[in-house]
């Protein structure tokens, strides 16, 4: 049985529907992420799970028990807040002891359990510090230790890494993964950062305008986005509008608007005569001055419009005939890559295999 069941939950603020008929089911020990742009309803949903807000319709069940009317303190759910929300008038030790005291834990057990919690997040020796004497990463760890010290059934994390710099963020991501694996508590993680979601989660629910657009494992979501929104929101993506010419057992000929015909396999939803789009990741497109003839069945001539050099990869904006622009990603250590970068104005060929894209039906 699922640990957390969200059934047809809706929340409105005046005319605005923040969460629109969302149903989810989250299993024990799962690392589940609610991903979406700001205003998509992910934080509202999180607040309803925590008990700070009540749904206008639908049910939230924890372990099969309906949470309607149960206040936050009555739920075996803890939250790590974006601002960390450490009590500034209490030391690290007192902060972590707080939930234990609330749970009426015997006094002689509090010390060892606080110590254990600090060890879990490797913050030994900081017991007597006050929150304003800690760095951002340390505050983050104290917030985690405090939320986990009495082993809730469910831990909610509201953009917990948003305030950290990139380097520290990456380290904290690795620590979060191993911490979650070690203690086996279910994590429900809210973020707008798709890379973070892909890196951390077992499953991701991509939300937009209060609805769940797609719910799946990270690799599935990245490779097989269900619609234009998901394809566009997760990673970089070329979305090429097209009509379907023919489709024989999933091998389709697509008429890309302004580009011409291409072959696409795995296009089971493509009904001849209907319209849709081909979602094509930049890293799946090859770029060269002259593409070897065997490589790609779909190929176009174009010229480099501009590029973004980001160290490990270079993202080229290539303008093909008819003025369409494609984003093409080339690893900077690619085998056979010429020592010279393509410059704006260079004539190039771009191409992709028939299984590189993903067909999105309208």
């Amino acid at each position, binding site marked *: 049985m699922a640990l957390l069941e969200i059934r047809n939950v809706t929340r409105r603020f005046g005319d605005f529907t923040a969460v629109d008929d969302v149903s989810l089911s989250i299993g024990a020990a799962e690392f589940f992420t609610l991903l979406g742009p700001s205003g998509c309803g992910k934080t509202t949903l999180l607040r309803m799970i925590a008990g700070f807000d009540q749904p206008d319709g639908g049910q939230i069940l924890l372990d099969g028990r309906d949470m309607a009317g149960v206040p936050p*303190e009555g739920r075996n759910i*803890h939250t790590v*807040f974006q601002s960390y929300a450490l009590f500034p008038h209490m030391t690290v030790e007192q902060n972590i002891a*707080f939930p234990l005291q609330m749970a009426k834990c015997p006094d002689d057990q509090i010390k060892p359990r606080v110590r254990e919690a600090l060890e879990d997040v490797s913050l030994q020796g900081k017991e007597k510090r006050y929150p304003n004497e800690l760095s951002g990463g340390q505050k983050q760890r104290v917030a985690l230790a405090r939320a986990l010290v009495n082993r809730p059934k469910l831990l909610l994390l509201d953009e917990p890494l948003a305030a950290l710099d990139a380097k520290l963020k990456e380290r904290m991501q690795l620590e979060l993964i191993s911490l979650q694996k070690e203690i086996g508590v279910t994590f429900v993680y809210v973020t707008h950062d798709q890379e973070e979601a892909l890196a951390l989660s077992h499953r991701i629910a991509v939300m937009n305008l209060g609805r769940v657009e797609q719910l799946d494992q990270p690799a599935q979501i990245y490779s097989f986005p269900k619609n234009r929104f998901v394809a566009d929101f997760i990673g970089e993506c070329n979305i090429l509008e097209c009509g379907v010419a023919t489709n024989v057992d999933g091998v389709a000929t697509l008429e890309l608007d302004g580009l011409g015909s291409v072959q696409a396999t795995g296009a089971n939803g493509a009904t001849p005569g209907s319209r849709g789009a081909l979602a094509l990741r930049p890293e799946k497109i090859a770029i060269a001055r002259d593409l070897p003839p065997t490589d790609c069945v779909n190929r176009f001539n174009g010229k480099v419009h501009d590029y973004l050099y980001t160290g490990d990869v270079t993202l080229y904006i290539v303008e093909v005939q008819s003025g369409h622009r494609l984003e093409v990603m080339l690893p900077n250590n690619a085998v056979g890559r010429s020592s010279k970068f393509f410059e704006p104005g260079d004539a190039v060929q771009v191409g992709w295999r028939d299984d590189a894209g993903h067909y999105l039906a309208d």
Partner: protein
Amino acid sequence: MKRKPWLLWTAGSLVYLFLYLPLVIVVVYSFNDSRLNAEWVGFTLKWYDVLFHDEQMLSAAWNSLVIGLMASVVSTVLGTMAGYAMYRYDLKLLPVLVLTPIAIPEILLGVSLLIFFVMLNISLGMLSIVLAHIAFCVGFVAIVVRSRLSGMDESLVEAARDLGATQWVAFRRVTLPLIMPGIIAGALMAFTLSIDDFVITFFTAGVDSTTLPLQIYSMIKIAVTPEVNAISTLLMLLTLVLIVVATRLAPGVFRGE
């Protein structure tokens, strides 16, 4: 700005001189061995001796202290509650009710309270003064407490609830300690407002309930004696001690931290 720092210094010094010179004179002349506040004759403590044997003055001081303590305790409790309510709920009427006594002229408040007490048959004395002082102190405490609350991170209370605290426990363990500097500042403000209030006290005082300001006023109607300087010096000392105690109890209380 860098070119003429002396201009700034001079202006600043003059302002402080204007503020503090009269106080210094009062303190100095309380030790002056002369009946007149005219010229320095010699050092003496005799005015303090006179002061401590002046029955009327002593009873007035005692009255002021009792009134100040009672008024500040009650108005701190009520003002904290009002400040919290104004912060927590979107109330239209409460701020008006709480803040009006601050805004309307003291003499109006004094007269209307007098009429009110007479109508209710409350005899004028200590009780009526305490009630009157509470009426105008609550608003000051409420303002200080509310501004302290609005500077507080709301997610702290949510975090406490989230970690298992009931609404009341969250208030006691998190909200209350965090707004305590504001409450202490409010209490001190209420105490000093009560101790030196003249107008409202004048209207609501009875025969046996003379306070320090009323006593001093009745004395200087005749002449400003060094005894008045002495009692003023002691009042200043008391205020200073209160400020020091407050900053010890709650560092940053006067910086609004």
